[in-house]
């Protein structure tokens, strides 16, 4: 691709943009200055006109999200940056912040300006310890230079940005769970309505945006909506920073126009499948998106095309599996992730992901039964769209897509009592016994006479 389409990653080769001086030298904070001269309506309009859609997974139009914030609620408004990047396979936010932290601050400040917010939070996942430090240092620089704080850039607009660290919970990427967590509660999702735009953080109007989304904003302000729309597809303008990982020669984060075919990303950028082996399956947008196969290599990587192919663009995180990988194991590991990360609030997610992870573990280790397959099929149907939030739907993706594309592999596991791909047989029992699960119940030992819960008996 041409360098001109590198927007968010244009300066990745240049570490000098990490500190403020370098960022300024490269044109940084120009957009924030411009936005201070614009009205909130003008700002929202340009972002609406650009067609920018959220990069966190759902693809909701960003300008529209901002426009939902009421002007006359009599309450403060808040911008909350979702830097809880935890979707397996996804790490573009991390690298974006590492390599150009001020771009996030600038984008956040412009979003704040658009909804007349004076206190913004960046919620960064706890595991991003260093990235949080990078951001905090950038925030300190921005305060010192007058880009944040009272009367920013000499004007009369005040803005504080506070960094808030998560502590290990994927669910906090769900926006209402993030708000619960930021308020000091368990990170469990809340009912909508009321929607965060009306009643979010501290029961006040709140905009929650993903890191990559906000980083696009300064470029839109600088270059205009038409420029942005000239990149990508009609319905999904702009670029996308795709993460490709797993069995490829050159895994990494690659910024490409929306709609770039998977084949281009895999073969031209990622160097093809590792060791020249055959592609078996891939996720287009992280663990929550149904697996596609080698038959789908020409699918364009944008919201609509991927959906047409039977999956979702999600976070644009592509995990590649080759012919030597076991799909039952892959499904088990991903479902186990959802069981581990389920917040516990609603029944289908809490019980369904737990059940599914254990059945998959049993099949994987050669203890499967024929009757397990209809159970797994039912499980997909009984969880999908029935849980409180979308986390559980994520667990259904690997279940349903592997059953759809790799049913013979399941049957072989059950029939042969071992994995037909890797040859592994019983012995490596997995499923539902993620060690951290015990950790969470461990406080039980502090209650008189009550130990942590135990798993009764061995899997049958």
């Amino acid at each position, binding site marked *: 691709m041409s360098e001109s389409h590198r927007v968010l990653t244009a300066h990745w080769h240049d570490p000098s943009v990490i500190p403020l001086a370098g960022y300024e030298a490269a044109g940084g904070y120009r957009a924030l200055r411009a936005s201070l001269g614009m009205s909130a309506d003008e700002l929202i309009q340009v972002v609406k006109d650009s067609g920018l859609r959220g990069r966190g997974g759902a693809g909701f139009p960003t300008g529209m999200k901002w426009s939902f914030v009421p002007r006359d609620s009599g309450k403060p408004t808040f911008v909350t940056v979702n830097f809880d990047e935890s979707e397996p396979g996804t790490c573009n936010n991390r690298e974006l912040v590492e390599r150009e932290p001020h771009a996030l601050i600038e984008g956040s400040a412009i979003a704040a300006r658009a909804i007349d917010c004076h206190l913004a939070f960046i919620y960064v996942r706890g595991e991003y310890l260093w990235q949080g430090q990078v951001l905090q240092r950038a925030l300190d620089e921005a305060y010192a230079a007058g880009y944040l704080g009272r009367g920013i850039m000499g004007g009369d607009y005040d803005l504080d940005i506070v960094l808030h660290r998560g502590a290990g919970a994927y669910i906090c990427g769900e926006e209402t769970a993030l708000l619960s967590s930021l308020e000091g509660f368990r990170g469990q999702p809340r009912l909508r309505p009321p929607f965060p735009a009306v009643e979010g953080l501290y029961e006040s109007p709140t905009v929650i945006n993903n890191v990559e989304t906000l980083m696009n904003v300064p470029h839109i302000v600088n270059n205009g909506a038409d420029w942005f729309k000239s990149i990508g597809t009609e319905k999904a303008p702009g670029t996308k920073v795709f993460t490709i990982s797993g069995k490829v020669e050159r895994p990494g984060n690659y910024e490409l126009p929306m709609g770039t075919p998977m084949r281009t990303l895999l073969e031209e950028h990622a160097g093809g499948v590792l060791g020249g082996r055959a592609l078996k399956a891939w996720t287009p947008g992280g663990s929550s998106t149904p697996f596609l196969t080698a038959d789908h290599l020409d699918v364009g990587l944008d919201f609509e095309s991927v959906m047409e192919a039977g999956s979702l663009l999600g976070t644009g995180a592509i995990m590649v599996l080759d012919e030597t990988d076991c799909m039952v194991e892959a499904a088990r590991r991903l479902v186990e992730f959802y069981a581990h990360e389920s917040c516990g609030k*609603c*029944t289908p997610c809490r019980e369904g992901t737990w059940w599914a992870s254990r059945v998959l573990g049993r099949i994987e280790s050669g203890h499967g039964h024929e009757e397990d397959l209809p159970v797994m099929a039912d499980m997909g149907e009984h969880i999908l*769209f*029935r849980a409180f939030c979308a986390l559980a739907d994520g667990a259904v993706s690997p279940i349903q897509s592997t059953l759809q594309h790799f049913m013979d592999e399941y049957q072989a596991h059950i029939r042969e009592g071992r994995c037909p791909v890797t040859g592994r047989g019983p012995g490596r029992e997995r499923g539902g016994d993620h060690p951290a699960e015990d950790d*969470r119940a461990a406080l039980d030992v502090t209650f008189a006479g009550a130990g942590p819960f135990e798993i009764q008996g061995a899997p049958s």
Partner: protein
Amino acid sequence: MSRPEQLVNLTIDGKQVAVPAGTLLIRAAEQVGVEIPRFCDHPLLEPVGACRQCYVEIEGQRKLFTSCTTTATEGMVVKTQNTSGVAHEAQVANLEFLLLNHPLDCPICDRGGECPLQDQALAFGPGESRYREAKRVYPKPIPLSPLVNLDRERCVLCARCTRFCDEISGDRFIEMFARGAAQQVRIAAGEDFRSPFSGNTVQICPVGALTSTPYRFVARPFDLSTVDTVCPHCSAGCNMKLDMRGGEVVRQLARDNYDVNDAWLCDKGRSAFRFPDAPDRIATPLIRERGLEPASFGEVLTRVAEWTDGARVAILTGGRLMDEDYYALSKLARTVFRTNDLDHRRTGDPGAAASERHAAAKPMALTYDDVETASAILVVGLDAEQEVPILHLRLRKAARRGARIWVVHPRRTRLHDVATHVLCAPGDEARLLTGGADDTLDEALAAVREGGAGAVVLAGERPGAADAAKRAADATGARFQYVTRRANDRGALLAGVHPSLLPGGRELDDVDDVEAAWGPLTNREPGRDTMGILRACVDREVDVVFLIGVDPLRDVPDAELVRRALDNVPVKIVQSLELGSLEPFADAFLPASAFLEKDGHVSTWEGRGQRLRAIRGRDGISLADWEIFASMALACGGDLGFETLDQLHDEMGRLTAAREDGGSESGAGTPPVEVEPGDGLALFTYPLLVDEGRLTEGAEELKAALGQEPFVELHPSDAAAAGIVDGGSATVRTDAGAAELPARVTEHIASGAAFVPFNQPGLAANTLFSGRMVTRARITPAESDPARPEGAEVVGAVTGGEA
């Protein structure tokens, strides 16, 4: 209620229904008689959508919707499990999920037979589980308190219990811990579920996860006969379901009444149900010959007639009879004994005179609903959680709805997280409430004034608080209610069981209506109040005293005076369930029926008369109090004029109905009530919710869960001046007596004030008081305390009254 409501029309299972906008589908379905299965939903808790059992299909929508979180909209077409195969299938599937880890130990579960999960599993659950994996197991059960046990294996994690503690009681002792499949209800390590509302979590638990210790393994639902009644413990008037097995009460549950107690009950109401069967209950008349000997009613009443003939008669009673009993007693005193020496109050508080008139003349002047919907609420001299717990919950509900609440009280109350407290030295209420004395209170008065009739002033029994509060209400236009504490103090006031009030709050010279029913009333001189009667007994100015449902040795804050009174008055006639500590003094005993055994009414603090029915036969040959009074009148040559309850009601209704013109004086003439001058702190007392009172006899689990040892509470500045440390031992010395007590030093009490609970185990505080619930006390470090000044007298802990 007259709030404007916009209606929306929708169709549920083919039935048209119009409901107010904002109504949840699960409620709308109930209106057309369709019950959608649910676990987490509760009409008094915020929607949560956790259990996912209540799925319905909405025409035109791809996904299913949880009916407990979806509001009805115009034209919506809803299909429940009854008409939608998809919804039915989703509910069956969800039930399968819920049962995966459920132990299915129904045969040993207290909830068996009345369990929504069991019912639904039987109705449409799969016959056989497809779950091959090992189940989650937990140690079971774990006690959360002496009253409540938790079995986490049975829990379906609906969060009703934790939401109750968050939204309703505010006592967040239990929470969801951990997450995912390990999520569980838990309590903090080393803590007890010390909430006086803990039992509600057991009642709303939709499975057998939370169980009640007093009911554990006691009965099966099909062994029980259930009757409706009203709780006898305080003036909240909670509606209850009472479960009996073979005539013995084994469980009490809240009965929904959204006008009174919503769906709640405090733990005392729930657990203290053994007193009617106390071992010292006496159900035979007794008369003192050589000792107290059994007799017939006729024999005793004949003697009563002899004793009272031409005698100076005084009558003391308490707050726990029924409206009809009080009415008959008021009439008996005035028409037969010609006396106004008649009182039901612990002491008689001159600072509540106008409030009492108002309460007596204006039942329902202010109700629970008015509290709930008020914009501003001023609570004066009332510790609602400890005194009228369900009113406390309604105040919290009001706060949740946006009411601003201020509490004027000498010590902080459990409303502290939803109300602003003004800690006020006892007797200082009048000065503060006049305005200009305290900025916070002035803000409160301004808010109350702004709220006008939408604002509420509630006054309690702290001495001097009531009329001060009433004046503030009158001055601001707020609605007012004097909240008396005991179950039927209000009924006693309405009936004129009071030295200077006739029924309906009429003055003694406002006799027209009363004489029309009762005949001429000759004695128009105000009588003596409780303390006056006792002093008159001491001074031998009373010949015969009736003690009706009261034990002044325990209830009156001057134990020594009572003892001398009982020694000096020639004839003591006791009418009650038992003799208790009065046994050595009684000349005659008349056995009264317990509340379970009587028909009649009890009035809430609002003045709402609630009907009770006899739910079991009378014990022995006991009679309802009013029947005894009627017979006594005949024996003494009078006639109360009614032989049946209907006749009594007819007359009573005419005299105790709300009176437009009654009880309107402002209390401006009420003298300020001050603690007697002198050295030391203003020591005040009132009974805590769980104490050594008669009605908690046998409620050992309750006492273990919520009881506490006696203590004296004082402010850090006063403690420092006296050399007392928190947790140290202090000697409390008053004109009446002394006691050595553990000290609690807290800034949440007015400086210059000190508090002792009235009746905790090991200390009957009425040994410290001289006829009022407040006195002067000198508080010093106790003998055992190193900081104690030399030469101080050694005083042992005082134990008074009957435990």
